[in-house]
């Protein structure tokens, strides 16, 4: 029975790995922290998997647990290096082959990183194309509040974009 649950869990992780990894990436300061956050999220997902009663969709549940793991992550608690989820490329954000994409991801990471933890979660969920209702359920606020927050986040991102443009202009 345990083996069966573990197999189901592995399948789920295989399906959702890009979502889990991208969320952790946006909450991490560096590469080591990405691994730590992914491990933390996987452990929490596993702990809750057996008791998951389908009150929400599996996808929503994965978002909830992963985001909660990232927000409440204790940066002093490092996992052992013994177990790490392998990424073929050492640093995806600094990829050399697709310079343009890598630069865009770096910029996206930089801007999202500047937001507060809940705003970061809201914008990530919105970028993942979740409905306002789903975002509201995951974050635990009203639908109206989600739309208000998103307007504010847009304004913040706009300011960041202006600052970035100014920096580029000044360096030129």
């Amino acid at each position: 029975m345990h083996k069966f649950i573990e197999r189901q869990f592995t399948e789920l992780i295989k399906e959702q790995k890009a979502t889990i990894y991208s969320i952790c990436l946006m909450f991490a300061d560096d590469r080591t922290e990405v691994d730590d956050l992914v491990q933390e999220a996987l452990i929490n997902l596993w702990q809750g998997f057996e008791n998951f009663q389908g009150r929400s969709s599996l996808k929503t549940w994965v978002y909830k647990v992963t985001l909660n793991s990232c927000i409440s992550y204790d940066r002093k608690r490092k996992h052992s290096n013994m177990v790490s989820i392998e990424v073929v490329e050492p640093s995806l954000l600094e990829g050399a082959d697709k310079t343009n994409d890598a630069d865009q991801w770096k910029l996206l990471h930089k801007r999202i990183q500047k937001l507060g933890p809940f705003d970061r979660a809201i914008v990530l969920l919105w970028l993942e194309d979740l409905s306002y209702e789903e975002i509201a359920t995951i974050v635990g606020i009203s639908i109206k509040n989600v739309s208000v927050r998103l307007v504010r986040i847009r304004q913040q991102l706009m300011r960041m974009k202006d600052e970035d443009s100014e920096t580029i202009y000044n360096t030129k």
Partner: protein
Amino acid sequence: MTNTEFQEMREQLITLKKELEKKTEVHEQVLHKLITNDTISFKKKEISSLILVASVALFLPLMLYFLVHLSPAFCLSTALFFIFALCWEIVIIRKYHIFHLMEGSLVQTAKNLRGYQRVNRFWLNRISPVFIIIWFTWYVMEYLGVMGITDTMLIICTVIILAIGGLIGGLIGYFKFYKPQMQKADEILNYIQELESEE
């Protein structure tokens, strides 16, 4: 930022996820090792901390009674405090089991974690200092009585040295572990308050 730019951000995330899909691998064995290791280590940690407190609650009063020959009232009070600490720990572990907290909404989870930290803060700020001061004073009096020490200077020096040691230990614990944890908790709470003020 225009809608097109936001759409671009969304597309960037999609390409990033596609890249992650290709470049990350989930090795079944590694995953198996990770989940079993951590589950065991969490349970081990939980059980070992309970065994430690239970052993101290049992052996320390016996040791104080039979080896140091302190009064039964003092030994019994020490045992009672440790039993209280043990019950407290069990209740807290059950109430705020971390893995159950992760499944609520982000705001609810952050609030629960805040509650957990508040309970810890209450224990550290209110219960522990009161107990330590009473216990330490009582212990010194009992010990001096048993040893028959009457030299006032020696008594004062011993008390001062022990108090300074305790103070240094307390300050290190406060600044190194307690304060950073509380700062993070307060930061999260501020975000929640900001979110809720708009409800």
